[in-house]
């Protein structure tokens, strides 16, 4: 039993490691082919990552990515592809910022209100896709992609000064107004130079624990995984697949709603035109790389955040920062390929093992029979 676990662990790590090595080699080839020094960019990136302020940026970004990736992973476990995390978190952050800016409650209540609003909005937006899937059979992939665009348009309309937006005098930006200080989530200061780690990053980590517990230690989690593995089998054992689809979409959306909050509560305190975008799509990469495992996702989130932040200063040294983008793209491709390779290898190995055990077991029984 113990040996089997070790095997599983090694195989579990083999996939991502193989993918990273392949991506690294391919990126180096790209660098060579484009006639750039293939070593210097990496050195610069590691040098950047050794600075405390960049480290804080990486941790903060990883927290944001982690939440987005968890949202995607909840869907993946249920065999649902929620591409709409991007729209869900943006709409959620915007509505939460609006509500937060128009209400002034004492500290914890204000934060709680903002968090609850964000989760509800995220869940609602994802729930539309879930509802369409369960009632009309619309593919959640198509529905969530479209809902992303609708969210963009809706936000652009809501944030107009004639609706709910606010344009400060002399500014060319539109905001939702500032959340009062009671709604600022305290962070962990790392010194004046380094800045502070958003308090919500720790909430993100806690969400990872909850995710692990719910999926692996509750009946609901079992139902969810069972339905994801085989809808018909789950149905046969008394799980309502439709209910599970809708519920997991709602949960996925609620978690997605949290993804904008580290930035909103810890830094900007308002939703403006330049609020970070694209986190939901990065979340898909991270969930894939982390194999939907809370720990794997955490490591992948850190990795992608590292690539993002460490590369951002490359252009100041005369290198293209798009190197990191190329690397991220290559990671996604190699992840898919290497996981498939590892899976095939594992299946073959298992078959071999079972074959051996059967052969051995058979020999044993015949001996016993002989003894009889």
């Amino acid at each position, binding site marked *: 039993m113990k040996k089997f676990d070790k095997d599983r*662990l090694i195989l579990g790590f083999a996939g991502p490691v193989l993918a990273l090595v392949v991506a690294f080699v391919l990126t180096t080839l790209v660098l060579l082919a484009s006639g750039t020094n293939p070593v210097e960019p990496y050195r610069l990136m590691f040098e950047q990552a050794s*600075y405390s*302020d960049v480290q804080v940026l990486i*941790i903060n970004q990883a927290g944001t990515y982690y939440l987005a990736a968890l949202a995607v992973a909840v869907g993946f476990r249920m065999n649902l592809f929620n591409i709409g995390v991007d729209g869900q978190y943006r709409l959620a952050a915007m509505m939460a910022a609006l509500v937060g800016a128009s209400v002034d409650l004492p500290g914890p209540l204000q934060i709680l209100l903002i968090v609850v609003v964000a989760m509800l909005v995220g869940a609602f937006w994802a729930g539309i896709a879930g509802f369409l899937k369960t009632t009309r059979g619309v593919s959640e992939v198509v529905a969530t992609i479209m809902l992303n665009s609708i969210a963009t348009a809706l936000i652009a309309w809501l944030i107009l000064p004639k609706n709910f937006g606010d344009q400060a*005098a*002399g500014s*060319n930006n539109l905001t939702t107004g500032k959340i009062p200080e009671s709604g600022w989530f305290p962070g962990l200061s790392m010194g004046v130079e380094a800045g502070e780690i958003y308090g919500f990053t720790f909430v993100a980590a806690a969400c990872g624990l909850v995710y692990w517990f719910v999926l692996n230690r509750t009946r609901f989690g079992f139902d969810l995984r069972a339905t994801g593995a085989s809808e018909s089998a789950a149905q046969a054992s008394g799980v309502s697949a439709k209910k599970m689809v809708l519920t997991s979409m709602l949960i996925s959306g609620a978690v997605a709603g949290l993804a904008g909050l580290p930035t909103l509560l810890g830094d900007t305190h308002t939703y*403006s035109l330049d609020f970070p975008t694209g986190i939901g799509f990065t979340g898909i990469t991270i969930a894939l790389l982390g194999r939907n495992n809370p720990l794997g996702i955490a490591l992948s989130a850190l990795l992608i955040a590292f690539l*993002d932040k460490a590369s951002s*200063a490359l252009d100041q040294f005369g290198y293209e920062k798009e190197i990191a983008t190329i690397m991220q793209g290559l990671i996604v491709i190699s992840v898919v390929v290497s996981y498939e390779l590892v899976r095939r290898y594992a299946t073959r190995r298992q078959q071999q093992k079972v074959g051996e055990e059967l052969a051995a077991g058979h020999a044993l029984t015949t001996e016993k029979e002989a003894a009889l």
Partner: protein
Amino acid sequence: MRRITRIATVGVMSAALALSVTACGESSSSSSSDTSSDSKGGKTAIAYDIGGRGDQSFNDAAYAGLHRAEKDLGVKGTEAEPSEGESDADKVQRLTSLARAGNNPVIGVGFAYAPAIEKVAAKFPKTTFGIIDDSSVTGDNIANIVFNEEQGSYLAGVAAAKVTKTKKVGFIGGVETPLIKKFQAGFEQGVKDTDASVNVLPQYLTQPPDFTGFAKPDLGKAAAQGQLDKGADVVYSAAGLAGTGAIEAVSKAGKWNIGVDSDQYKQEGLKAYKESILTSVTKDVEDSVLNLIKSIKDGKPQSGEVRYGLDKDGVGLSVSNPAFTKMTEVIAAVDKAKKGIVDGTITVKTTP
């Protein structure tokens, strides 16, 4: 058993996380801190807006200013580009490390830098920070460089209304932000004041936060095609790099273009279509950047709002296309409108 290993790994993981934070050394800025004094000509840094250099427009104009400062004033320039979808925290980090490296001034191109400049400027009182297109954040060491885009666009409207034969002119805005709406407002007012029977067909390529409307020429091309199909024969595109697609489509149809920000008739990348570029609404980002750098070198750093309007030729209408200068009647109308705006008899709206 399995539970224990899981818990152990979680423990290791969180320890690693904690380590990576506490074991960190110095910050990116402290390592490269020759804050004390500048190199001979001084050091200047520019942090670009989305799109970066090569957008044939806004960012390139800022670069042109820096380039001239390097050549004429002997300053050493550093450039930094943003990543797509980044947050304010990234901008703060970028500006901080640029300021700490001894750059003065540090210039943020575009309104998105405003919150970051406000934070960083307070930390470096001896460094001047320039921000283009924003006057909402203020400080002794912040120079707010703003333009009256609506005034230049008004003149373009006058020219368009005079030139159009179909009585339909197009306006293509990159992203529907308050800034681009200033271009639309001025243009529409200019058209209507000149000839009320001319219709303006306004169209925006994308809605924020989708800023690809400044970056994707294919979007501009499709939009221009649509306006041509509706009968427009003059198209004014205020869409950064996406505008080049519009210029291509309009040029192929044999209609008139009005360019934006730089004098696009003279631009190398648009050489093939230059005959169709009637004029461009210029926004002299180049000189504004140069002036700011120069003011620091002269020991009189700019501070507060530095406004560039029609009166100071900070915005205007370019006259490099001979086909345009030959239209004496149009030129006369434009000049009259310009005079009206400068002496205050015409006030141009900033919102459509």
